[in-house]
């Protein structure tokens, strides 16, 4: 899922300050799971903003709350149309893709981000999320036992560990597991340690963002 965290109240207040009627628009998928932008977070942010405006700005603000299933898909976005029409601005609690989808779909409405999109990751346990994928566009997980060195090795090494790994932890930060320690353990368990005999040439980053914004085309799905 896409992991994000809500922006500080102060920053959000500054961005909505010029507007009187604000629609806080939640997204019921990824950002809901990471407690950044689902229905509950919309409700809490609305309450916090009302309190903050009364306290600091000495004025009230009209806030409408709505959460749709997904802000990154047109089918769901339409549900927000009426609410957008009633308000001066949309404060989107979706990821960056959701915010941009809303802005494209409703060009006349200012759409502001309320969340900092952080990474593609998983929930390790309740309340703790960690990065797993960099979206490099050329997945090599098959060679590495399902553990991505591009994302999880701090140095993005593809041909084995550096000399700084200690007791399975990374020298960059001892709270980070050494990806190569994990890869070797996993490949040993799978009986695939020989995978590491194959030299991996320097990564071609053209499939990542180095070539500019990426686009995926599926001809068979185009109507």
């Amino acid at each position, binding site marked *: 899922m896409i992991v994000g965290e809500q922006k*500080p*109240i*102060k920053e959000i207040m500054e961005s909505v300050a010029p507007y009187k009627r604000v629609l806080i628009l939640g997204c019921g998928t990824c950002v809901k799971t990471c407690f950044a932008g689902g229905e*509950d977070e919309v*409700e*809490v942010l609305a*309450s*916090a*903003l*009302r*309190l*903050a405006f*009364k*306290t*600091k700005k000495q004025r009230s603000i009209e806030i409408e709350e709505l959460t749709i299933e997904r802000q990154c898909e047109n089918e769901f976005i339409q549900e927000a149309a009426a609410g957008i029409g009633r308000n001066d601005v949309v404060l989107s609690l979706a990821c960056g893709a959701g915010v941009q989808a809303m802005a494209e779909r409703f060009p006349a409405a200012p759409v502001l981000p309320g969340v900092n999109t952080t990474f593609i990751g998983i929930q390790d346990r309740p309340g703790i999320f960690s990065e797993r994928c960099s979206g490099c566009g050329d997945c090599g997980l098959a060679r590495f036992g399902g553990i991505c060195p591009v994302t999880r090795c701090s140095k993005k090494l593809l041909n084995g560990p550096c000399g700084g790994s200690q007791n399975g932890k990374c020298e960059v930060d001892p709270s980070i597991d050494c990806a190569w320690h994990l890869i070797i353990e996993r490949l040993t368990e799978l009986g695939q340690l020989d995978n590491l005999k194959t030299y991996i040439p320097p990564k071609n980053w053209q499939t990542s963002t180095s070539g500019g914004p990426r686009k995926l085309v599926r001809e068979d799905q185009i109507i």
Partner: protein
Amino acid sequence: MKTNNKPKITLFYCINAFMESAPVFEGCSIKTIKMACSSMTKDIFLLKAFEAGADAVLVFACPEKQCRYVEGGIRARKRIEWTKHLLDETGIDGRRLAIFNTDIKDPKAAGKIIRETIELINELGPNPAA
């Protein structure tokens, strides 16, 4: 019981941690919310209490390690810490929100907490968003 001049306190309490009695609430205008467990406390309920005009919000949870749901008090405490941070961000002041472990058999201790909270409100002034 309500008067405009008295500090307004909203009290969320676990039914196993506190029993309501009038003397405990002397000197304040109190609104109470009874819960089956302090873990039912959520950030939004606490914020709404401030929106409704509370000068301070208290949560009474069972003494440590005596929660019948094992970790109810721990969860409540974490949520209160989170909400205090939100209150600081909004300018309300996180000190207006607090959680205490109270013993249902010790109403005097609860009364002391209420009195200290009234003193704190007198020091901080009324809820700035009220």
